[in-house]
C-alpha cells in the first residue's frame, strides 16, 4: 500500500453555477477504515461522493488514489483504481439477470484485479450478498431491498479496495438494516476493504462506524469517532441537536 491512503481528497470543491455544493473538503481514508459521512439535507454528501468516484469532476482541489492523482479522470479510471460505489436509488440493469448484473463488473473493472476467494466469481459474490436463489431472475423482478444488495454485489464485482455506499439502509426495516451492517462489517474485516458510508438516518449509522465525517453546507465541520462527534458543539448546533438529545 506504499504508505499512501487508499483515497485522499485535498480541498475538493464542486460548484454548480453559483451554488457551491462541496466547499474545500479534505479527507484521507486508510485501508480497512469504516467511515460514515453524515450531514443534513443538502449538505453535499452525495455530491462529495460523486467527486470521490469520478462521476463529477471537482471545480477545484485534487483527488489521489494510493498517491496517484486522479483529478478529472473518468469514472472508469476510478473503478480501475479499485474505487467502487453504489447509487442512492438502485441502478441495476433491469433486463439482465441478477447473475449477469454481477458478471458485468467482473467483465470490466474487476477483470484483471486479483481478489480473495470471497469475490472469486459470480457464484461466490451472489453467495456473499445472499442472492444465490435469485440468480436467474431478471434484476427488475427482485424486491427493492434485494436490488440494493445487488447494487453492492455489482460494486464488489469490480473487486474494489474502497467501497462508497450511498444510503444503502434507506427504507429498510430494522432487521434488514442490521443484516446490511453486518454484511458491511464482514466485507471490511475479511477483504480489508475501506468502506465510506453515507446515511441520512444518523443514529443508525453512528452505531456501526468507527469514524464520522460531518458535512454542513458543503464544508467539513467535524471528523472523529462517533463519541467525539456527537459532543462537538458545532455539529450539535448544525444538525444533531434534537436527534441525539431524544
Amino acid at each position: 500500500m506504499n504508505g499512501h491512503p487508499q483515497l485522499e481528497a485535498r480541498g475538493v470543491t464542486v460548484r454548480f453555477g453559483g451554488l457551491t455544493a462541496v466547499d474545500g473538503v479534505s479527507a484521507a481514508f486508510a485501508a480497512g477504515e469504516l467511515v460514515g459521512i453524515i450531514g443534513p439535507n443538502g449538505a453535499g454528501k452525495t455530491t462529495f461522493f460523486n467527486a470521490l468516484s469520478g462521476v463529477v469532476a471537482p471545480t477545484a482541489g485534487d483527488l489521489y488514489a494510493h498517491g496517484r492523482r486522479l483529478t478529472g479522470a473518468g469514472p472508469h479510471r476510478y473503478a480501475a483504481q479499485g474505487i467502487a460505489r453504489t447509487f442512492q436509488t438502485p441502478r441495476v440493469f433491469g433486463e439482465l439477470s441478477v447473475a449477469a448484473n454481477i458478471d458485468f463488473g467482473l467483465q470490466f473493472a474487476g477483470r484483471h484485479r486479483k481478489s480473495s476467494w470471497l469475490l472469486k466469481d459470480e457464484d461466490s459474490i451472489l453467495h456473499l450478498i445472499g442472492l444465490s436463489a435469485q440468480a436467474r431472475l431478471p434484476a427488475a423482478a427482485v424486491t427493492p431491498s434485494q436490488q440494493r444488495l445487488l447494487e453492492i454485489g455489482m460494486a464488489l464485482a469490480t473487486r474494489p479496495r474502497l467501497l462508497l455506499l450511498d444510503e444503502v439502509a434507506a427504507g429498510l426495516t430494522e432487521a434488514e438494516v442490521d443484516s446490511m451492517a453486518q454484511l458491511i462489517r464482514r466485507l471490511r474485516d475479511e477483504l480489508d476493504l475501506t468502506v465510506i458510508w453515507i446515511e441520512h438516518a444518523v443514529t443508525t449509522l453512528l452505531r456501526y462506524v468507527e469514524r464520522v465525517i460531518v458535512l454542513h453546507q458543503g464544508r467539513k465541520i467535524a471528523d472523529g469517532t462517533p463519541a467525539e462527534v456527537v459532543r462537538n458543539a458545532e455539529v450539535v448546533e448544525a444538525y444533531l441537536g434534537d436527534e441525539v438529545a431524544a
Partner: protein
Amino acid sequence: MNPWRESRVRRLGQRLAQGLLDRTHLGRDLLVLFALTGWALAVPHYGSDFVVSMALTCLMYVALATSWALFCGTTRYLSLATAAFFGIGAYTSALFIDSLGWWPVIAAGAGVAALVAVVMGSAVLHLRGTYFAVLTFGMTELIRHAVTYWEKQVTGTVGRVLTVVPERDTIYLTVLALAVLAVAVSIVVRRTRFGLGLMGIGADEQRAQTLGVNTRLAKIGGFALTAAFAGAVGAAMSVRWTYIDPATVFSPFIGFQTVLIALIGGIATLWGPLIAAVVFSLLAETLRLQAPQAYLMTLGLLLILCVLYLPGGLASLRWSTFGQWREDTRAWWRELRRDKRRDEARENAT
C-alpha cells in the same frame, strides 16, 4: 456432501445449461445466416435484371440497418449520419476507383468513413438523445454542402460519372459480402465484452462507467464500426449508379430510411433490421413506381403502428403477441359496450 459443495455443483450444472443454451443460439444464428447467404448467392443465376436489382437494394439496406443497429440500437444513440458515411464512401469510390482497383476502393471507403466517424464522434458523442440525433443530422448536411462547394470550386461541375465499372455480379457479390459481414459482426459483437459494454451504455451509461467501462472509447469505436459499413456500402453502390452527385449520395433519405428500418424491425434485435430491410425493399420496389405517395404513407403508417403496438419491433413478434392483441381488443370492445349501455341507461332515466 456439505451444503456449500452441493450448491456449487448445482450451480455448475445451471451454468452448463446456460452455456449450452447460448451455444444453440449461436448455432441457430449461424445456420440462418448460412442459409440466407446461400439463397442470396443463387439469385444472380436464375433472377432477371429486375430481381437482381431488387435483391441488391435489399442487401444494401440489410447491411446499413444491421450495422446501424449494432451500435445505435444497443447504445440508444440515434445517429442520423448514415447518409454522411454512405456519401463519403461513394465519393471515395468515385475518386479512386481508376487508380486503386475494386477491393482496395471498398476498403478505402470504409476507412475514410470510419476516420470521419472518429472525428465526428469525438465531437458529439458526449451528447445524448435529441441533441445527438439533431447534431449528426446537421453534420451530414454540413458535409454534403462542403462537398458540393468543393466540387464547384475544384472541378467546376457538381456530379461525377464513373466510367470504369465492374460487372453487375461483382457489385452484387460485394454488397452481399458486406451484408453477411454486418450480420456476422453483430453476432460476434453481441458475445464479446465490447458488446456487453455497448449494452451497458444503452441501459445506464453512468452505471456502466462506474463499473469500469471506458464509455468514450467504446462509443467512438462502435460509431466508427457502423460508419465503416455505411462507407463500404456507399463505395460499392456508387459504382452501381454510375453517376453520383452530393444530392443523391448524401440524401438524408438514406439515413432516415436506415433508422426507420431498424426501428420497425427492432433496434435491439439481431434479425429485426434484416427482416424489415427485406420487407421495405420489396415495398419500395413494388409501390414506388405505381404509387409513390402510397409508399411513403405505408412507411409512416407502419412506423406508427410499430411504435404503438410493437415497441420491440417486428422481430419481437411472437404467437403470444397475437393472443395479447386479441385479448386487448376484446377488453376494449367490452368496455365500449359497457359505456354505451351505461349511457343508454342514463338517457332512459332522464
